[in-house]
């Protein structure tokens, strides 16, 4: 079978395989009544202040579920045999308003059953999803191990990464699971202060008399009767033994219950502050404590919290009432926020995630790849050319979606396209696709389309995996030194264009080496095509040098403005320098006569190794001013990609040896008695 034909079949075989879904895990729920779309839409518009910015609850829901489950949808099967698939916004609505259901949804992914075994829970399969209630029997053990491993991790950081304190894989997973469970409990407990229905998360830590009391006491009404006290005074009071009278016991119980509700309601900051100069929004817990501390604060705090009380009450009345209450609350919250100049881009942010621009872009590149693979079945034919054109158009659509998504992100945060590592993935992918399409426009050899499709496919897949792996909001607030749109728009953008060009050079080299290696077996060398590839690669390397060099020097000038030195031999600076140096090695080596066509391509693969090291590797060294934090699994992925590139280099070495041998044979005088061949 011809190699292109084999690749085409492989590509088409892989696509459906990737779409096969796993069986949904079973839930203890008898049945599940989904929320109406209108209700979910009204809910997702609510505003929350988190990580230093005001954002829609839609974003919080997305990254919370990614953090717990690694996915943005929850799939499960209820006892009545029905399969369900919940969007993250609907799931978050359950968490906040139907906690008793949320506790039975399998949203905690456990990658190794050893984790649940260690906390005393019966494991399902090796890697599986568990609900909160399924993990509840191991809650105490999980808290104990979590505290232990948290301390170990702290010692690891303090000891400048002494290996004796490094967490192993299972310990790391236990720590993560413990934190996820704790986050879930805070979310479910957010509106516990507004409930008297007996449902409380962590109710097991309350004594029976307090549980009973919680059904009778209305927290907001309690506020009117309580004396002013600070949090410290509250804690001291509830630690004291209550007096003997019924009234004293009741009072003590009420305080303990109040503390329980205030503590459970931390984390989600729904409430813009009263003071226009104050930028910090509060959670229900913050408002309860502020009202306890000062009677002056109570009317305002009660008014704010009554809004949540209305929502909780309306939800019990039925979905139409709940929808109306949500809409009213959302409208009021938006008016307050907008008067403060906040939250005005929340709808755009919802559009960013709902539009799925990046995953749709990935779909385009997958389709383009399949179409392109089919074009290889009929190389050179009219059909083949048309299929290639379709692949190019699909790649262009993928690029347009990528650019649109990046533009939305830039508008939302009012910043240039790149402010963090995730942005670099999107931007470098877009740039590489654009370069590929430009090369195709200039050369019409099909290689540019291949570059565009391959880099788009790989890049958007990487973006998707990175977002799921990190599971934190990717629209981040900047530290003070990065608070400059000028340098972000110049140095950061330009250096990333250089990275993209370095990777494009490597893809062209892969095409060249594959083609030359294949020719070793079928013997049909297409010299003109190979020369064209070398010219193409040489041009891309020059392009890479220009942007890497200018970007690096611009970075130095920025460093000189920020830190007082042009060059500090920081790992990220060194990475950029190595890219410049290696492109110069290729250009000068070629002029020295040491590097010929095949050398240009093999060195392009070395360039790709340097680019990936500079882009991802140096961040994980844990040193330097540009260290963006450790990303688990990066070294494994880097080593794998370098091994693949090494394989291609070995192929190139085989071609080079053959080429050398052939050249030597041509130069050698004809053997005696045999005529010389032309």
């Amino acid at each position, binding site marked *: 079978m011809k190699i292109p034909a084999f690749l085409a079949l492989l590509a088409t075989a892989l696509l459906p395989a990737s779409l096969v879904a796993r069986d949904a895990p079973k839930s203890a729920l008898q049945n599940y009544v989904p929320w109406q779309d209108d209700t979910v839409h009204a809910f997702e518009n609510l505003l929350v*202040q*988190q*990580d*230093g*910015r005001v954002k829609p609850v839609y974003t919080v829901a997305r990254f919370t579920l990614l953090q717990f489950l690694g996915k943005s949808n929850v799939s499960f099967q209820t006892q009545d045999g029905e399969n369900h698939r919940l969007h993250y916004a609907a799931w978050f609505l359950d968490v906040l308003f139907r906690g008793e259901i949320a506790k039975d949804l399998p949203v905690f992914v456990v990658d190794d059953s050893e984790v649940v075994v260690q906390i005393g829970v019966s494991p399902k399969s090796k890697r599986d999803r568990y609900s909160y209630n399924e993990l509840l029997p191991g809650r105490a053990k999980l808290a104990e191990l979590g505290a232990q491993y948290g301390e170990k991790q702290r010692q690891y950081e303090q000891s400048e990464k002494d290996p004796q304190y490094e967490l192993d894989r299972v310990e790391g997973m236990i720590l993560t699971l413990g934190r996820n469970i704790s986050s879930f409990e805070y979310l479910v407990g957010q509106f516990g202060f507004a409930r008297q229905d007996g449902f409380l998360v962590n109710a097991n830590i309350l004594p029976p008399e307090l549980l009973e009391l919680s059904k009778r006491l209305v927290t907001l009404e309690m506020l009117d009767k309580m004396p002013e006290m600070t949090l410290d005074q509250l804690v001291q009071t509830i630690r004291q033994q209550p007096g003997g009278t019924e009234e004293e016991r009741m009072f003590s119980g009420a305080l303990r219950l109040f503390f329980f509700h205030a503590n459970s309601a931390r984390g989600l*900051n729904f409430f813009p502050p009263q003071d226009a100069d104050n*930028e*910090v*929004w509060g959670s229900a817990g913050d408002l309860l404590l502020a009202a306890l501390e000062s009677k002056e604060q109570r009317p305002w705090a009660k008014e704010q919290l009554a809004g949540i009380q209305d929502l909780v009450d309306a939800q019990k009345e039925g979905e139409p009432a709940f929808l109306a209450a949500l809409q009213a609350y959302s409208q009021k919250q938006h008016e307050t926020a907008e008067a403060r100049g906040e939250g005005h881009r929340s709808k755009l942010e919802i559009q960013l995630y709902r539009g799925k621009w990046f995953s749709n872009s990935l779909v385009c590149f997958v389709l383009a790849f399949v179409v392109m693979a089919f074009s*290889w079945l009929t*190389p*050179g034919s009219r059909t*083949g050319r048309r299929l290639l054109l379709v692949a190019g158009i699909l790649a262009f659509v993928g690029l347009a979606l990528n650019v649109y998504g990046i533009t939305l992100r830039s508008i939302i945060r009012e910043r240039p396209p790149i402010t963090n590592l995730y942005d670099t993935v999107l931007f470098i992918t877009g740039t590489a696709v654009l370069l590929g399409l430009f090369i195709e426009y200039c*050369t019409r*050899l099909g290689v540019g389309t291949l570059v565009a499709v391959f880099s788009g496919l790989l890049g958007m897949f990487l973006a998707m995996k990175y977002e799921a792996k990190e599971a934190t909001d990717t629209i981040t*607030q900047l*530290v*003070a*030194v990065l*608070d*400059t749109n000028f340098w972000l728009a110049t140095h950061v953008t330009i250096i990333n264009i250089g990275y993209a060009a370095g990777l494009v050079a490597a893809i062209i080299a892969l095409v060249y080496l594959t*083609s030359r290696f294949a020719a070793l077996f079928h013997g049909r060398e*297409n010299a*003109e*095509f190979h020369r*064209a590839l070398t*010219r193409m690669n040489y*041009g891309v390397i020059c*392009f890479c*040098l*220009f942007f890497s*060099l*200018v970007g690096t*020097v*611009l970075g*130095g*000038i920025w460093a000189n*403005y*920020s830190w*007082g*030195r*042009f*060059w500090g*031999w920081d790992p990220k600076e*060194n*990475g950029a*320098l*190595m890219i410049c*140096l*290696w492109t*110069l*090695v290729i250009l*000068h080596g070629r*002029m*020295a006569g040491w590097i010929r066509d095949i050398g240009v391509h093999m060195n392009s693969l070395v360039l790709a190794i*340097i680019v990936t090291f500079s882009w991802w590797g*140096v961040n994980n*060294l*844990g*040193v330097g001013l540009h260290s963006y934090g450790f990303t688990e699994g990066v070294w494994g992925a880097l080593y794998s990609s370098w091994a693949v590139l090494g394989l291609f280099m070995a192929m190139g070495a085989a071609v080079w040896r053959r080429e050398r041998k052939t050249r030597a044979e041509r130069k050698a005088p004809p053997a005696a008695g045999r005529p010389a061949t032309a």
Partner: protein
Amino acid sequence: MAKAPKQTKDWSPKSWPLRAYRLFTSFKLATVVLVLMTVVTLLGTLGQVEHGLHAAKEKYFHSFYFVETIKGIPLLLPGGLLLMLLLFVNMTLGAIVKVKKRWKGAGLLISHFGMLMLLAGGFVTWAFSTDGYMALYPGMTSNRVESYREWQLEIAPLSKEGVGEKAWIYPSERLDTMRSDEQRVIHAESLPFDVVINGYSRNATPVPTSAPIAAGVTGKEIDGFKLSPQKASKEAEQNLPGCFLEIRPKDGSPPIEAILWAGSYKFDPREKPMPFTFTVGDQLYGALLMKKSWTVPFEVRLDEFLFERHPGVSTARNYESRVTRLEASQPDKALEIKMNEPMRYAGYTFFQESFGPSGSQPGDEMFSQFAVANNPADQWPLWSLVVTGVGLGVHFLVMLVNFTVRSRQRTAPPSAKP
């Protein structure tokens, strides 16, 4: 056809200058140097994980050669300084002097000239720049800049009120060359005693002899303390050196011993250093390990320090200092120094570097720390960027146009596909 006689190579000493010229102008030398620079840069980057930035910089980049042991095999490799020197010579001779001056190569000529400027700027910075810091609380005025890493020994006669007068200094350049097992006897003419330093450690901590950890510490015990050498921190700024000090009065009085430790120095602008005090004759003296410092020709007063966090989180959004520059012959000048907006004056540049004390909460009084640099080549990178950028831009534009035109002309037939 007659075979051409084989040319023999001329190895006579007369040919050496020409050979050297050919070598230093060659692309081959450029390629070798660039490959080695890449290798050294990689080693220097990875070396930072183990040694920290400062030590790695000194070993790999600020050196003419270094020895790297890979899998037990020692390798002698050229250091960054030697490689950059070679590159400078190669570029000057090969890309500026030897190269044919044609319009077609104008872009490359310009860009190489720009890179030479950059390398020259790097050398001037390495050889002549100084850097340190100045930390001030609002209301404080100073013209003194302190080094980040260099420590020196100061001994000063003290007045009855404990105020130091003109100090005798054993400089950091000499202190840094001391080994931990070395003893140095210093005969200071201006002092009525000799100074003996031994057991100098770049990072140390004193431990009370009563502490269990002291059992494992060798060395002298003085006043119930021993000096415990510590592994050097990767962050060289974190190291706190220590040593044993012996004062040997020249009048034959008994010697005085002490442990000096850098932890006695001030780390908050408001703290006062705590020197070891002793009396020789009737004069009180103070001895202290303190950071090397120097003055700038003007004073800076911090009027206000503004610090903002992103709402609800600990990440700093902005910090800036409102200062007044005070100079005898000039009117006072009010200025703002903030991230990415330094103050440049009289050859010195003040950058908003950091703040403290660590762990400060909103509402706490905080000090502002400025990085103070004096670099004669401060702006050279900017100029070289402009020159190099223009050069490369011209060159690659010409190449791109040629490539595009040729590619369109040579658009391959369908059979040329992979």
